[in-house]
């Protein structure tokens, strides 16, 4: 977890990347990976409806970007974003989604069965690699409901609620994980079918410095399938 935070810091302070830049590339990777594994034509619901659940931090921001690109790729995303930071970055991302007719739910579906009926996929963009400590409401109940749905879950960077290094045996079990920049230790405990790498922006020098040993991305793709 410390290393992931150090890499992030270096990208922002030494390399002068903006959060906006990296978040955009991260969100695009997530949407791209999802489109590769769950193309719109594969949905059993009448329309390719996706529920994107966004948390209170950067992982939530990644989710907003992802939702926007999913819309561009022909999906019908709906966002649930209960705790919104009052920062221009997140306000901007929210506006971009709203202006693209992406609905924001006023409340979270109460029953797992409702989610299964309405959506073909859920994107978990609640907590990321900075997550520590206890899960605060409303996310505790959300995670509990998500634990009982049958449609696949795609988690951005870390399955929400997991310890970033040790995982969580009784926590969320997503079908897909999109690790951003590099897989975190928790990914060792991932048991879903699809593990992708995204966030193709790490300069070669930084990869070396932290001995990331990332396998090469194919061609100009912004995602790499690891399993």
């Amino acid at each position, binding site marked *: 977890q410390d290393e992931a935070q150090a890499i992030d810091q270096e990208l922002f302070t030494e390399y002068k*990347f903006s959060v906006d830049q990296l978040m955009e590339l991260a969100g695009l990777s997530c949407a*791209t990976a999802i489109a590769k594994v769950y193309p719109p034509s594969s949905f059993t619901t009448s329309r390719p409806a996706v529920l994107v659940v966004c948390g209170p931090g950067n992982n939530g921001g990644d989710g907003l970007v992802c939702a926007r690109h999913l819309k561009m*790729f022909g999906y019908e995303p709906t966002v649930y974003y209960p705790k919104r930071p009052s920062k221009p970055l997140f306000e901007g991302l929210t506006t971009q989604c709203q202006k693209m007719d992406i609905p924001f739910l006023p409340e979270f579906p109460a029953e797992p069965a409702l989610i299964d009926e309405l959506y073909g996929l859920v994107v978990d963009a609640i907590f990321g690699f900075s997550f520590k400590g206890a899960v605060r409401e409303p996310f505790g109940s959300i995670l509990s409901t998500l634990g009982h749905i049958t449609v696949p879950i795609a988690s951005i960077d870390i399955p929400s609620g997991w310890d970033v290094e040790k995982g969580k045996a009784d926590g969320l079990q997503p079908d897909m994980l999109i690790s951003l920049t590099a897989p975190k230790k928790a990914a060792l405990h991932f048991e879903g079918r699809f593990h992708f790498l995204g966030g193709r922006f790490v300069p070669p*020098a930084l990869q070396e410095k932290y001995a990331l040993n990332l396998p090469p991305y194919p*061609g*100009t793709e912004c995602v790499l399938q690891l399993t």
Partner: protein
Amino acid sequence: CHVPVSPQAFPLPSLPRKQPTVLVVCGPAQNGAIGLVCARHLRIFDYEPTIFYPKRSPDPLYQDFTTQCEKMDIPNLLPTLCVCPLKVQLINDAYNAVVDAVLGAEAEAAEGREPCAAILSTLKLIRIPIVSLDVPSGPTPRSASLGQDGTPPPPRLSPCPAQHHHGLIAWHFVAGRFLPYDVQKKFELNPPEYPGTECVVALRAPR
């Protein structure tokens, strides 16, 4: 928004030189900044870009783009005013292609001002392919001035759906897959469909 067109038109294995070198010529405004972002992604895609950015923008965002490139070891040719590093033969010999990110569609006023004019007259004489971002840079973008001077037809790229263009262009891509539908409708843009999750679509390719 990144611009990965060069690999589609000029994939790494097809390049004539041993090193996958590309010269990215960046003008002083937004078109130049797009060039900087393009150079960074080319580096990630394992090309060896070199930047020529003689007149730098004071915009902090664009200055950050410059830092990102420098920190990724993308060399910047020195813009000495007396000796223009852009010598035609040097370019032909050292690079596989040139990315023209000098002037964009909005640049009516900047044309003719140094160092753009000198750069553009050098680019008219080179023999290697040119990829222009949005419009081929130059005083009369609507004419075929580049083609008429005997340069190879340039591939080009439009951040927004195609502007009208005449002349010998071998590849034409549209990029900038970020326009919301209501903006597309409002301006009657009718962009083509992008394939799958691609962020560029070829409007024209050589047979």
